[in-house]
């Protein structure tokens, strides 16, 4: 199948390892990624939307028009982009007058929003369009014995009325994707807690990150697995900052799902950019290498 990736800003600029992992793993699932030129920031659903909802919606609609012109559905990798583009579609479908207002603005650049392309996060495309068994079939080095504490992040799931991804209280999509690569999903008390990054106040997110990592430490997981770059920024560098403030060290590697998938597909850690993370995944990599040496002995 052919889809157009919408990478947004944070992944290509701040965490390009996520883009690399995605570009290297999706073809192994039988997906052809067709890059489209002409996108801007989605725009971001926290700051830009705070400044002006109508402008936020108009720019989102323009991005959707670019995909419509190319005739390709969008696959998103960032939960923020997913939230913006899916909510824009929802609002423009819900309110005809609003759609007209936005289209009046888009007319200035010769565009008209129709609402003809689908927007889905990559994990949803895998589950619903490809089937999770496709993931298992692509695995050459299963991540046996690796315990992954899942962090969902808010915007993949909520509001479920718009996102249509999973039960927002009892989701299973990421557990199933983690199990499909041979790793063991580990539940923990704070699995669904917000990372706090969207809060424009400094103190509260520290407490939230602290509680999430304490909960993961108690769960005995080897790493955290997630699908959102914003959460990643709260957790990779974030756990170090919070650890310093709280006089503790978590040392729990935070790994984007497509990096884990890449390892399972036999890619080297550098090919999925694990070396770029602040909290290194050395213990997991040694465990995987050890398991392999044992298997071949």
């Amino acid at each position, binding site marked *: 199948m052919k889809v157009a990736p919408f990478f947004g*800003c*944070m992944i*290509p*600029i*701040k965490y*390009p*390892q996520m*883009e*690399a992992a995605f*570009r290297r793993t999706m073809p192994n699932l039988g997906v052809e990624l067709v890059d489209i030129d*002409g*996108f*801007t*920031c989605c*725009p*971001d*659903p*926290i*700051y*830009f*939307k*705070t*400044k*002006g*909802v*109508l*402008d936020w*919606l*108009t*720019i989102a609609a*323009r991005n959707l028009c670019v995909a419509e012109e190319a005739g390709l559905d969008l696959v998103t990798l960032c939960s923020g982009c997913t939230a913006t583009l899916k909510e824009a579609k929802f*609002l423009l479908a819900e309110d005809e007058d*609003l759609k007209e207002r936005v289209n009046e*603005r*888009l007319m*200035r*650049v010769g*565009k008209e929003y129709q609402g003809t392309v689908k927007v889905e996060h990559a994990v949803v495309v895998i589950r619903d369009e490809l089937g999770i068994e496709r993931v298992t079939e692509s695995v050459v080095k299963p991540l046996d014995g690796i315990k992954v504490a899942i962090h969902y992040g*808010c*915007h993949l799931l*909520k*509001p*479920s*009325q718009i996102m249509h991804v999973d039960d*927002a209280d009892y989701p299973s999509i990421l557990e199933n994707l983690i199990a499909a690569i041979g790793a063991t999903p580990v539940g923990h008390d704070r699995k669904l*807690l*917000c990372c*706090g*990054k*969207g*809060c*424009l*106040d400094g103190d*509260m*997110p520290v*407490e*939230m990150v602290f509680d999430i990592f304490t909960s993961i430490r108690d769960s005995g997981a080897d790493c955290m697995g997630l699908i959102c770059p914003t959460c990643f920024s709260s957790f990779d560098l974030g756990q170090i900052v919070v650890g310093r403030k709280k006089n503790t060290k978590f040392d729990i590697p935070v790994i984007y799902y497509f990096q884990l998938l890449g390892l399972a597909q036999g890619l080297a850690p550098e*090919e999925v*950019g694990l070396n*770029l993370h602040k909290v290194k995944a050395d213990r997991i990599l040694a465990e995987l290498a050890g398991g392999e040496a044992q298997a071949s002995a």
Partner: protein
Amino acid sequence: MPQEKEKHVTIDFAFRRELDQIIGGDHHNYCYQCGACVAQCPAAQYSESFNPRSILLDALLGRADVLLGPDSPIWLCTNCYSCYERCPQDVRPIEVIIALKNLASNRDAAPSDVATMTENILKTGVSGLITPAVQRIRESLGLKPLGDYPVDEMLKILPDEGKQP
């Protein structure tokens, strides 16, 4: 009777009408103060100053001084959408809070990060800074360099070419 006088409530309907004009702001009218939004709200769990039901009550009363003032609780919202998920009245409390943030931004009462991030996006088309270091890391991963973004086209669809987003 002084006691009865204290019970007197004034509603600022002009402010509520202003809120109605922002996308999502009009849904504040549906709130019947049930408090379903509070239980799962992380900001309410982590801060005594934040309560989405109280914010909605202040919106219903039109209390601009509380909601848009320097100590407004709206900036503690974590944008998690739990309240949207829970609300039985389709108030979409977070969208009302965002609409209130829009009104605060219009009055220059938003935290400075908001203007900084917005200006970056309007100037470059993206939210992050594309430095030579970024391009080098991309190259090391075998990724194409990042190029230009259609900033002019993006600005043309904003009311006055992006000066007042």
